[in-house]
């Protein structure tokens, strides 16, 4: 009873500490978001003035977007590009994290490797785009030269002309830029697992792979969820590399992402602010529904898993003490 009271006494600090976030959000973000929402129902195109005229059919822009073949393509592309870079990324990041945290394996110079793997992330997307643009040059370029020398290909490949290779290239660059950062998060996740669980597994005589599958992976769920949600949200906004590397849309729109589509609507010659805004709102809703369901679906399971794990850990500890 006493505890409850004292908690209520401190509740105001919860509000107080969240206040700077709320105020900043209200001042700097809310107005632009509402503004965007408003212009998605308006006729604002060309010169962006302060005046907003509502359309007689306020949902016209949304209908335009639903009927817009290019927008649908861009949404599909975004999902395809995200999945094809996220799966290898999370797999590699998890495997590396497991290696680096495995005391038996005892990888030497792991600090050195960890430091290097994150490095692609500190270069600007513009530099990376120039760099890979040159690497994948066609007909003459380093990769073409290399692959032809080894006999993988007979004639130069025009990487950015074929939709599949263009997508693969973009996905590869995204993967390469982000696996290090995901690895750091995964290592953090493994570090957060109660060491008693690993000790218990060792006592049970589990092999490295068994420990990884039975202890590490289930315990990592909340972190995988974190990575999944943040990467999904980031992936749905993928912009820099597709924009800079393959001239905005890629061959036959193969690498046109939703964010690039929005950019083209808003900042192309026609400056279609209203349609760009409608497309953004749709993107937000789609993103919210998918991320929200990911989040809640995994969260319930995760809470159960945590409870179970705790019990198991406590038992293990008790046994250890006895």
């Amino acid at each position, binding site marked *: 009873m006493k505890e409850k009271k004292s908690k209520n006494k401190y509740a105001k600090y919860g509000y107080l500490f969240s206040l700077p976030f709320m105020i900043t959000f209200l001042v700097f*973000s809310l107005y632009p978001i509402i503004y965007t929402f408003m212009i998605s129902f308006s006729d604002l195109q060309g010169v962006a003035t302060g005046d907003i005229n509502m359309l007689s059919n306020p949902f016209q822009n949304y209908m335009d977007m639903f009927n817009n073949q290019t927008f649908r393509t861009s949404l599909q592309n975004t999902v395809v590009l995200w999945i094809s870079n996220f799966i290898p990324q999370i797999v590699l990041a998890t495997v590396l994290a497991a290696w680096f945290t495995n005391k038996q*394996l005892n990888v030497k110079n792991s600090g050195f490797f960890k*430091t290097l793997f994150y490095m692609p992330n500190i270069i600007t997307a513009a530099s990376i785009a120039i760099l890979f643009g040159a690497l994948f040059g066609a007909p003459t370029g380093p990769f073409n030269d290399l692959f032809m020398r080894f006999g993988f290909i007979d004639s130069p490949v025009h990487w950015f002309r074929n939709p599949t290779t263009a997508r693969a290239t973009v996905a590869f660059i995204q993967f390469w830029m982000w696996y290090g950062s995901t690895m750091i998060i995964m290592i953090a996740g493994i570090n957060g697992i109660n060491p008693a669980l690993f000790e218990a597994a060792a006592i049970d005589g589990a092999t490295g792979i068994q420990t990884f599958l039975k202890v590490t992976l289930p315990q990592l769920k909340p972190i995988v969820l974190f990575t999944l949600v943040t990467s999904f949200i980031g992936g749905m906004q993928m912009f820099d590399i597709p924009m800079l590397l393959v001239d905005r849309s890629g061959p036959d729109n193969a690498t046109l992402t939703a964010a690039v589509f929005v950019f083209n609507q808003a900042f192309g010659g026609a400056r279609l602010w209203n349609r760009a805004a409608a497309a953004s709102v749709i993107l937000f809703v789609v993103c919210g529904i998918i991320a929200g369901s990911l989040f809640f679906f995994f969260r319930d399971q995760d809470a159960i898993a945590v409870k179970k794990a705790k019990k198991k850990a406590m038992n293990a500890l008790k046994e250890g003490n006895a």
Partner: protein
Amino acid sequence: MKKFKIGKFFLYLFLIVLSLLSVLPFLIMFVNATRSTPEIQQQALSFIPSTYLVNNWRHLMVGAFNPFVGFQNSFIISAGATILAVYFSSLTAYGIVAYDWKFKNAFFSLIMTILMIPGTIAIIGFFQFMWQIGLNNSFIPLIVPAIASPGVVFFMRQYLQATLSLEMVEAARIDGSGEFATFNKIVLPIMKPALATQAIFIMVGTWNQLFLPLVLLSRQQLWTMPIMVAQLQGNIYRTEFGAVWLGLALTVLPLFVVYALLSKYIIAGVALGGVKE
């Protein structure tokens, strides 16, 4: 045993290949910074340094390019945004994790919702708003909004759930520490590894951003490094690519330093998760 050794050999080989892939772009960047424009145009990538470093530097120093001003501006913006983001996100996360209040869950859901808003959506409204209230040519719109960084709050919350012991907070209270002081003196130090990890992420992001500063800052004395490098590419009829690469290399150097300083936390690793000790 032997099998294990072969396995380890391949493991190291794999790690070394990945490392090379990571180093490659930096190597090319620094090598290209020493090459002349025609050399780069004839062959974009090379591992053999050339002799045009001084010449590229001279081309770099023409016009608006002033690395000292650029560094200073970039530093103010990225250091400001990073400090505000990690500090206030930690504070917000602590407010969510350590206290029970009525709208706590609603507030956290709101943060998650904000996280899902596509960056491009608000940018149109954002820069028009900034122009309207006269905050163009000011660093405020580039620094202050970092206080509300939903992704960082999310991360910090995960971290605090794993590491924060409420007993410790309670003990501090008994010692007569105020809530704010407890946060600053006890909680923040616990969060150091998480702060370092997020600080790198945010620092890199703000240091490299181009679009927003470009639209907001029209006065050259306010320009950041990426804007200055981008304007080197400005001359479509005759871009000095050697100078551009030198500019890009210079831009990334300070990040190297910051990264080197903070990387020990990354190497040591933070602990994240839903399981408390």
